């Protein structure tokens, strides 16, 4: 079931087009990644889907067009914390529970559940501003989940977090997905998108460049695999030329005892074995061999022609 269907949505600010006929569908239970550099249109499409802005043209359908109260079904976890810093954790939870329409026991029950689930229970009486950055982010998520939304927008949820906390976040996001929540994730971390997202949309200058499962995108747009051999004393120039001719690869390079050999992704294993055998036969001492696989980063680079910035 498509929970959000974006159809030919455009947005203009005066003469400037920030979104140009963008279309995609987000299915229930998906973790949908919105990737793109600054100014790609991620924030604009997010605001339009959240109802904070109106599109200039195009249409957005929620839950296949069924009549719903969107604000009860949707939630945003902003990149920056969005709670009263002077309130305690519990007070923030209870207040926003009320704002999100929870009543009576539900407020308390939901607060207790989320605080426990996000490891915040021990801080419930702590003033929110006294929490560490990571826990403040967890509180931010906890508040956003108070009304048990079906669609959750996560805006750069792990920026600035330490690896441990980052892993915790990924774990919780996956748990949410497991409970059939639909998650729309905007992130600059390619590994995060690759690891979490079930589908990725790549935007540039307001246009949707490509969309698909991460693995498919890597396969289609990730480019070549690179085999790196470390050889004692390096490979002689004549041998290097021979390898280039044999593999018909002019881009093979040798630097500091390291030999870089690019391979097409398909049927590359036989070629790797053959090169390894040939070097051993020639009497070279292969210290190590590693393979550098293409990633989403490469996809982004290949499609947009630019590297993704790590921080906004």
């Amino acid at each position: 079931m498509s929970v959000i269907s974006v159809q030919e949505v455009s947005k203009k600010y005066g003469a400037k087009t920030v979104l140009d006929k963008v279309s995609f569908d987000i299915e229930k239970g998906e973790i949908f990644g919105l990737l793109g550099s600054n100014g790609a249109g991620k924030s604009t499409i997010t605001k339009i889907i959240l109802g904070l802005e109106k599109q200039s043209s195009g249409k957005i359908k929620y839950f296949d067009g069924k009549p719903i109260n969107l604000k009860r079904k949707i939630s945003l976890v902003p990149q920056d914390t969005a709670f009263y810093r002077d309130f305690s954790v519990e007070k923030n939870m209870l207040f926003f529970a009320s704002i999100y329409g929870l009543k009576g026991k539900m407020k308390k029950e939901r607060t207790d559940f989320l605080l426990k689930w996000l490891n915040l229970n021990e801080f419930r009486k702590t003033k929110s501003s006294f929490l560490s950055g990571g826990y403040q982010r967890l509180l931010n998520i906890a508040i956003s989940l108070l009304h048990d939304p079906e669609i959750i927008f996560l805006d750069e949820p792990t920026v600035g977090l330490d690896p441990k906390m980052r892993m915790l976040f990924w774990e919780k996001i996956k748990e949410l997905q497991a409970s059939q929540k639909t998650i729309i994730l905007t992130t600059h971390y390619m590994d995060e998108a690759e690891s979490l997202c079930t589908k990725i949309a790549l935007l540039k200058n307001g246009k949707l460049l490509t969309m698909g499962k991460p693995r498919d995108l890597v396969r289609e747009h990730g480019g070549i695999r690179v085999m790196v051999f470390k050889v004692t004393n390096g490979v002689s120039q004549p041998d290097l030329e021979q390898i280039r001719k044999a593999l018909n690869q002019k881009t093979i390079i040798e630097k500091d005892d390291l030999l870089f050999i690019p391979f097409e992704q398909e049927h590359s294993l036989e070629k790797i074995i053959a090169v390894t055998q040939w070097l051993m036969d020639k009497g070279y001492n292969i210290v190590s061999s590693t393979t550098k696989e293409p990633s989403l980063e490469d996809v982004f680079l290949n499609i947009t022609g630019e590297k993704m910035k790590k921080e906004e």
Partner: protein
Amino acid sequence: MKLIDIIWKEISVVKSQRIALLLIVLYPFLAIGLLGSSFSGISIAQMSNINIGLINELPFDSNIINEFAVGNNVNLTEFDDVNQLRSAIKTKDVIVGLKLSAPSENSQIRVDLFYDNSNLMASGIFLEYAKVTMQRMTIEQTKTKLSEIFNTMVSLGNNLEGEITQVNEFQRKLEEAEIDLDSLEAKLNQFDFEEIEDALDGQQNSIDSFETKNAEFLHELDAFENSFDEMKQELEQFNNEFSVYKEDLDFSSTQLETMITNLDAMIADTAIDPAIKAQLETQRAGLVTMKGKIDGIRNGLDQISNDQSELNTKLNEADALFIRLRAESQTISSTLSNSSATIQTMNDDLIVFKESIDEVKDLIAEARISKADIEEKLSASSALLSSFSGQIIEFSNLDPKVLAQPVVFYEQRVFNVDPFGILVSNATSIVLILTCLLLTSIIVILEKSENVSLRMRLSPTTKPMLLFGKIIGQLLIALVEATIIFGVAMFGFGINIIPFILELYLATILISLAFISLGLIIASFTKNQSTAILTSLLIVVPMLFLGGIILPLEFMEPTMQMISSFLPLTVANNILVGLIIKGMSLLELIKEIAILTFLILFILVIVMLKEE
């Protein structure tokens, strides 16, 4: 270097806040411009449209108040009784009320000053203003009066009657002088200059006639002398010719003598025939006869010559006579010329004399005019003296106490409340505006900056619910603030608010809502706390100055007064002053309530639209 970097950072941060920067630039202009235009040349003397109520119970016509009104640009409104006056002060139709009364014209004037004691500064200023102005007016009057009398007394001395007699004597002398002038004029008029001129003209004519005749005589004398000269010349010529004849005769006689002698000799000569002698005898006889005739003619000629000499002598005598006659005639002519010149001189002198007489006449006429003028002045002076005399008599009847202190003031507070009561209303207004406006705007900005407002916008709670929840929360804080002030006023200063506590709280709610609304609209158009605070102050500070709390509205220009009367703080203060001090009901303050209600609704609509 580090310090410079820090300083530059500070400036850069301020520069990056556009609205803050704008406000920083605007503040001086607003502060100076707004306050300057409102209170430029702030002084009571320059105030306009000052409404003063008046109850005039003076037993005489007094122009003091009119002078007061004209000299100080005030509008006077007369009232019949004190209650009417008090009501007018309560509704601010008049600022100060004056009740004038006095037992008699020469007694002290009692001035009851009814003043609006609901505004400490305004009431104090206007009270002092009214007192000082009235005192100044009366002191000026007293001073003028005393000065006039003093000058009169100095100038006239101790005896005014003597002065009047002297004036009368002066008048009498003037009358006599006029009679003398009349006499002089009559005498001058007796001169008949035409007759004198005619006589002189007659004399001149006679002299002219004499001169003519003398000239004719001279002319005739000249003609006669010429004829005489011609005759003398002819006689001379005759004499000359006569002498020639005489000489010829003498020659002829001599010749004849000679011839006779010669004949005698011949006759005596015997040798000559006697016949020839006889003939010679005959010829000699003929010659002797001829000679006798010639000698006779010659003797006749001598006679004639003698006569001629005599005639010549006489002619010479006639010549001498002619010379004398001519000399006499010239003497006469000269004398006549002298006479004519003398008459001309007399004529000239007569003209000068006539002109002098005319001048004297003019002088007499001027003297008469001067006399009339002097008489008029003397009459005026006499009247003035009589008036001064009367004034001095009147002055002597005045009570010295009236002159020293002509007006006695009695202050009458219109509202029965002490200064602390006034402070309660003012303090409540100021505290509410600061609390509500600043708190609301700051909290809204805080929620924006901490993304809480974004979260709320995405929540199922409606915008009106969020807005009204915020307003009511702020309202409760304001009510707590107000309750503290009311508590202090009641238990600390003994101001009894119980009789109107319900109305007071209703008014506080309304005022707080208005100020909260202002805070909301400030927050709607600002992005950070510093800008919100600056903007709040930008609104609050001018309202404090223009709201009539610190400085009286009456000090402002009329246009600014009108604008100020619609400022929320002014309206709020009016409501609280009305309730706490003036004892008015909310119904009487319906205008102020309507203004605030309209303001609240207007702002809330804008805020809702802005949120959308």
